[in-house]
């Protein structure tokens, strides 16, 4: 029953996340807090149970499928999109390009200036 155990752990963490969000009225959704809960749990446990890995990686492999139902919802807003069509399209393209470029450059510059562990390169070569 490892898969059921894995799924129960994921749902349990999400449940704890939702509880924390409501109790502390946090401005973030429950699953994100659930992710933090699971991470802390894994750190304390010291390893990932095999059932949890199987169900978690199964879900992540099909992550894009999970966005489809919400995405179809755009059909409800065709009218609104039509009135502001060009502002929306140009904003999305310009801003996404800028965000990608700035983030990548900043990250690269910052990681280059922090000392790298030379063992890393070896480890990656082997894998």
């Amino acid at each position, binding site marked *: 029953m490892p898969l059921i155990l894995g*799924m129960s752990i*994921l749902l349990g*963490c*999400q449940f704890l996340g939702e509880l924390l969000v409501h109790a502390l009225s946090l*401005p*973030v*959704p429950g*699953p*994100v807090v659930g*992710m*933090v*809960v*699971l*991470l802390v749990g*894994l*750190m304390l446990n010291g390893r990932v149970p095999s059932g*949890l*890995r199987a169900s*978690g990686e199964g*879900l992540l492999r099909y*992550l894009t*499928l*999970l*966005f*489809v*139902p*919400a*995405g*179809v*919802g*755009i*059909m409800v*807003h065709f009218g*609104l*999109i039509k*009135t502001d069509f*060009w*502002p*929306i399209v*140009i*904003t*999305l*393209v*310009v*801003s*996404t*390009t*800028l*965000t*990608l*470029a*700035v*983030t*990548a450059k*900043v*990250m690269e510059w*910052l*990681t280059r200036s*922090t000392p790298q562990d030379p063992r*890393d390169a070896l480890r990656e070569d082997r894998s």
Partner: protein
Amino acid sequence: MSVPALDQLWVYLSASPLLSLLATLLAFMAATYLNRCLGGTPFLHPVIIAIVLLIAFLKLTHTDYATYFDGAQFIHFLLGPATVALAIPLYDYRERVRRMLLPIMLGCVAGIVTAVISTVSVAMLMGASRETVLTLAPRSVTSPIAMGIAEKLGGIPSLAAGLVLLTGSLGCALGPLIFRLIKVRDPSVQGFTMGLAAHGFGTAHSFSSIGAVAGAFAGLAMGLTGLLTAFILPPLVHVFGL
């Protein structure tokens, strides 16, 4: 089978969650196949093709979105546990994350500020309505968080969810081009950038076409961006007088 019997069967099927679920899975498989036939082009992301196919199907069968979502919500629901599951790759690469903690935090803030300022200023320059600007503002954040933020600011939550998806597929298409153009090769930097700019789409894309390290960093960036944007965005939007 006679025509009236077929009619009744259709009435039964279209009201049950079975049809929406099956249609969603079939559309996704067809979209993945189509995308592969087109050489895996990132400009026609399988999710976008699947969404277009499903909207066409719903329009043709005169099914409204609420009826469709009654069935498809079972797939939608899995987004919650999938978000939680992002902790697994994060745990696997914890050493690397720990070493890069400062660049990660600074990079995240720089990315969010760029995303919000460029979005709001371009949208205002283009003459978008106030409502549209406020709906666009949280577009680089994963949809459940973006919907919450849009609502708080005075935008339209469900439209925000759609714009988030468009941003995600756009990010997947533009990301590899931009990385080549500005010569960024480190998979952890690529993954982090994709997760920040294109949330769940970028994360899925990083897992499938860059690798597990990139996927872990994308998941981290997605979660962190969601958390930080909720705090950074409202004061930033006030600067623009909205």
